[in-house]
């Protein structure tokens, strides 16, 4: 019986639970994801737990293109969930990864994604302990979708929450905003811009853990993914019933990002980031926290960008002109304009 005619692309049979599924797992997933919990290939990963509280988060990744400057869907799938746990004050420990693959997807591409996931897991010090693979027919999915779920232990003594936020607190960000969203947008062939903007995709758990360990005055953190900085700030302001004033002159934005957003009429405040977090911190520790962050590669452009005031859930940008611009949540994905 000739089972494999080609071994370069994913076939529906790779997802039927039979021989090809087994081969896919053994040859392409396990060599990279291998750890004592996954290696058993039992139906569930079983592990001992520590005392305290756990955090659980899940996210699906459908990014198009699958490969982009600065990362790929695999790296993103690990970072996204790791960062969600990290900004919640947890130390990420375990991930599950579920793949939905469109038939015809290149095995070489899949392997590249798997390698990238395993490297990012190593960087973030997390393990993929359970997984699943399904293959769907042409057109039923776009190339590859990945869902990751992550579990982590809440760091002892860390107590983050909207209720901790008080007028006078400062707002900081760990670096330049807008890169990921713009990097993805620029991959569209129709835009015809060759400019290389690199996604900031990175696991933030280590830098955040250091920050939380050193500075007990951190009140709340958010990663600045879809909707960008402005949407995250608005959500925080609404949930905690304060106003947030961001200072336009202090916002870190790379020159190239400034240039292209100007060209395409985009606003870096609303572009997605995958390696950036915002923290609300007690004003007394704010400057020291920024200095500490700046010693880390993922925080070298950290800045204080605003402060909390009494109010009703509004976010304002103090403009370079000295005026105030009210910021709302993102309304529809950013599109390049000519107007």
């Amino acid at each position: 019986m000739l089972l494999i005619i080609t071994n370069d692309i994913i076939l529906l049979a790779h997802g039927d639970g039979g021989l090809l599924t087994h081969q896919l797992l053994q040859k392409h997933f396990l060599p990279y994801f291998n750890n004592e919990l996954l290696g058993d290939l039992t139906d569930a990963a079983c592990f001992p737990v520590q005392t305290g509280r756990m955090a659980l988060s899940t996210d699906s990744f459908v990014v198009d293109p699958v490969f982009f400057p600065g990362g790929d869907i695999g790296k993103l799938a690990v970072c996204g969930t790791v960062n969600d746990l990290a900004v919640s004050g947890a130390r990420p420990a375990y991930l599950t990864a579920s793949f939905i693959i469109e038939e015809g997807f290149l095995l070489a591409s899949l392997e590249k994604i798997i390698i990238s996931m395993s490297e990012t897991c190593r960087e973030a010090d997390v393990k993929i302990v359970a997984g699943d693979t399904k293959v769907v027919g042409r057109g039923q999915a776009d190339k590859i979708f990945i869902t990751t779920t992550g579990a982590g232990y809440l760091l002892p003594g860390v107590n983050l929450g909207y209720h901790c936020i008080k007028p006078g607190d400062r707002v900081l960000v760990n670096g330049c905003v807008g890169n990921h969203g713009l990097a993805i947008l620029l991959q569209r062939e129709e835009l015809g811009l060759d400019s290389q903007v690199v996604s900031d995709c990175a696991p933030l758990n280590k830098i955040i853990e250091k920050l939380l360990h050193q500075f007990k005055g951190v009140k709340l953190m958010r990663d600045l993914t879809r909707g960008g900085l402005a949407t995250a700030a608005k959500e925080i302001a609404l949930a905690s019933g304060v106003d947030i004033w961001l200072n336009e002159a202090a916002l870190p934005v790379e020159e190239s990002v400034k240039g292209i957003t100007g060209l395409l009429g985009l606003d870096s405040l609303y572009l997605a980031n995958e390696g950036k977090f915002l923290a609300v911190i007690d004003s007394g520790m704010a400057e020291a926290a920024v200095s500490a962050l700046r010693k880390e590669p993922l925080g070298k452009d950290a800045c204080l960008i605003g402060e909390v005031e009494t109010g009703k859930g509004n976010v304002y940008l103090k403009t370079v002109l000295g005026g105030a611009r009210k910021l709302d949540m993102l309304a529809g994905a950013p599109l390049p304009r000519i107007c």
Partner: protein
Amino acid sequence: MCLGIPGKVVSISPGENQAVIESFGIQNKVNIFLVEEEVKIGDYLVVHAGYAIGKVNLQEAQERLKLWEEILVAE
């Protein structure tokens, strides 16, 4: 509707009416057919939707800066 961004010409392919301009460190290919004056390396062009619509007159720009200085010292 008229986003237009100035960029500095870094290279020209005259036969194809194309030039590469740089703004904010980003290089971009633009069509220069519409520019009436001769386009030289180092010129600044304002680009709208991929087409240069005009060349920045640097002397006029300088004059403008002077005018603002005058506004500022005015009564």
